[in-house]
């Protein structure tokens, strides 16, 4: 019997990627009966689904964010375990993106497709490293799908930050960082670099950071940024959502050095647009080299490319003798959560 190509059993619908023999959607953008969710970021995990299958950490994140709206029926999937959803064998595998993030492998009719969700390959002290899963079709993101995106060693970026803190001891350093993943990873990287002072957080970042701690990620002393008087914040490191770093909220800090931790900081014009004084190139997404290496590692004859800069990555995939194809998903922002 010839294997059934995933093309014949996976389709795009307005709600998202529909897996017909499972009657389930992967990371649906609208509420559905059954959702398979790769990770907790808002453009992948949305509220209002009936049944949700995801890792225990992702479910905890969704409950923290959406409460009752996280879903009626939440089922935890362990990394590597195989469960049947309809006629499809489903398994979750670490993606290395944020705590609880997973690639979802779907096997049916003799073929296997892997939805990688968002992923990265560099070690991250806050989550399990990416594991390549051999497959027939690999679905990859392409957030940084241009060869100009090559993320430097994150510890060197942390070194830049600490050097700046030493050079401007009378100023606070406020770093724009997304609340799920980036924030906690930055704290963990600071601890790896030997930084043992309390890290101060904007109120919007505290809940998920507490959740990380409850889920067993050690982050050292954390304080709310609002707890200390303005002048006591001199020389301190403050993390805040990107929207707050250059707005009224930051006025409570002494002459803040505005920093931003993101893969986009690699390009000067992008960093300037954000009004950033200290760009830190630290990303939770695969860079160009990681994307290409991953395509080799999973060794799939066919790769579908979702959100990001598809054309360059497809060009490189096809130059390597594989079939590449753009999977235009609605609802994913061009500049994915980063």
């Amino acid at each position, binding site marked *: 019997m010839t294997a059934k190509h995933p093309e014949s059993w996976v389709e795009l619908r307005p709600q998202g990627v529909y897996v017909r023999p499972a009657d389930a959607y992967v990371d649906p953008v609208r509420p559905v009966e059954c959702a398979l969710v790769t990770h907790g970021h808002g453009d992948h995990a949305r509220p209002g689904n009936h049944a949700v299958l995801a890792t225990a950490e992702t479910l905890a994140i969704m409950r923290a964010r959406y409460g009752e709206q996280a879903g009626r029926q939440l089922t935890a999937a362990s990394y590597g375990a195989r469960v049947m959803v309809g006629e499809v064998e489903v398994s979750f595998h670490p993606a290395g993106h944020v705590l609880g993030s997973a690639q979802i492998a779907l096997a049916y009719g003799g073929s296997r497709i892997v939805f990688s969700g968002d992923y990265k390959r560099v070690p991250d002290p806050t989550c399990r490293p990416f594991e390549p899963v051999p497959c027939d079709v690999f679905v990859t993101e392409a957030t940084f799908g241009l060869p*100009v995106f090559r993320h430097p060693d994150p510890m060197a970026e942390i070194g830049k930050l600490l050097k700046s803190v030493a050079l401007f001891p009378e100023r606070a350093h406020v770093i724009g960082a997304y609340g799920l993943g980036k924030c906690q990873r930055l704290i963990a990287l600071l601890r790896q670099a030997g930084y043992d002072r309390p890290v101060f957080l904007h109120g919007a970042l505290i809940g998920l950071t507490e959740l990380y701690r409850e889920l067993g990620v050690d982050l050292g002393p954390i304080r709310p940024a609002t707890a200390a008087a303005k002048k006591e914040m001199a020389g301190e490191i403050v993390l805040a959502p990107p929207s707050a770093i250059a707005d009224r909220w930051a006025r409570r800090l002494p002459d803040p050095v*505005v920093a931003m931790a993101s893969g986009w900081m690699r390009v000067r014009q992008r960093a300037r647009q954000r009004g950033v004084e200290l760009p830190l190139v630290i990303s939770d997404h695969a860079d160009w080299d990681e994307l290409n290496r991953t395509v080799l590692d999973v060794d799939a004859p066919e790769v579908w490319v979702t959100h990001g800069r598809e054309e360059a990555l497809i060009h490189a995939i096809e130059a390597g003798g594989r079939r590449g194809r753009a999977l235009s998903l609605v609802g994913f922002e061009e500049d994915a959560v980063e």
Partner: protein
Amino acid sequence: MKAFAALIERLAFMPSRNGKLRLMADYFRQTPDPDRGWGLAALADGVDMPGVKAGLIRGLAMDRVDPALFAWSYDYVGDLAETVALIWPERVEKAETPRLSRVVHGLRAAGRSGAAPLVEHWLDGLTASERLALLKLITGGLRVGVSARLAKTALAQTADIAVDEVEEIWHGLEPPYSDLFAWLEGRAEKPAIDERAVFRPLMLSHPLEQAVRESLDIDAYRAEWKWDGIRVQVAARGGKRRLFSRTGEDISGAFPDIVEAKDFEGVLDGELLVATDGRVESFNRLQQRLNRKRVTQRMLAEHPAWIRLYDILHDGEADVRGLDLDTRRARLEAWYARWRPARMDLSPQLAFAGWDDLERLRGETEGGAIEGLMLKRGDSTYVAGRPKGPWFKWKRGPLTLDCVLMYAQRGHGKRSSFYSDFTFGAWRPDGEAGREELVPVGKAYFGFTDQELAQLDKWVRAHTVERFGPVRAVKPELVFEVAFDSVARSTRHKSGVAMRFPRIGRIRWDKPAVEADRLETLEAMIRD
């Protein structure tokens, strides 16, 4: 190269002057000779690298990268050097990181043919930000918002001396400035320099405030016009001729007409203007000549440069800065009578009997070429810097126009959370019968107190009608009394006019926007 690249990257994003000074001072302290000297040269004047052009860099990248990928990347990044720096394929086995001094010496020795393999070898050994610093350095143009003056100021700060002490000897020194650093660090004497045609720091004035005016012994002062040009220093000695800006930048290259006309000996202080046979043209025409490395014959003919002299620092070989102004004036007049230099004349001293005369003179203008009066004590010696008391500038009152706030943009640095850059407009007919529209006439970001800024920020947020990134369009309801020095025709602005030095004079919270001024009122203020 590592320290230099780190410095360049931070400077590129540092909005504040003090922050830039701190970064540069730190670099000068931490970096060894001769590398820091080449870093200083790159920041101050640029380092000339013959034989390296943008085409060479693009060619190197094309040999390594798929052309389609390069094209997509260049399209996204928008800057060639940055694209090449970012896209350069990294090797696991790194080549060595060259020192900055090696880069400079290596490229100078390599010449046109040898440059490409050398640059290629270095690119393999560097990180992305180091590659960018290398490519910006060798193609000229770091573009990090640092003037030569600012780099020298940072250098002076490392030794806690006045920047003018550095300026005084700067043009007699050569990179990598090891002798300069040795002196600043107290390891050697002040470098002895060739005294010919170096820059002498200028004497500057204070604005005349009302309180000062009341106590001033006006009979001890001499009055001159305050010309609306560029303050310059002309230095000619022993066959060397140079023209310096007020901050000591050598601008000889942009003014060959002045430099070639110098067949005298001396160092003079004066105003650079555009003038035809002594008749001064508008500042607008002088602007055509500024900030250019080279000038065309046509520009020389259309906008001929002229210098109006008002002081003498060296008369031939004699340093006369220690003499009083009245004596210097006599020497200046005698010097002028002796050399009769082409393209130069003397700024007259104005006769006056008291404040009434001065008030009247201050109100006079000459085709827009005069900004007001200078008052200088007759017994003042020529002192570098801005001593309080001997010299005052007394500008004519500014022009004003009531304008309507149209757009507000967030500021930088300390002001990054405030809407602090304001674009304002004046009314004009919009083509339909009887209807009026606002057309932007200028942009200002100072003239208000911190408290007023907080009020303006709040007002902008509450009256936003549209957002474009960091810019907000607001309801046309708030009137500013905008003060400015002059206004000229401009083809680059939609309104057809450009204000010079606009600032917010007053915020007219009380004035309805319909009562703000019309564009034709502004046009009537043009003097050309």
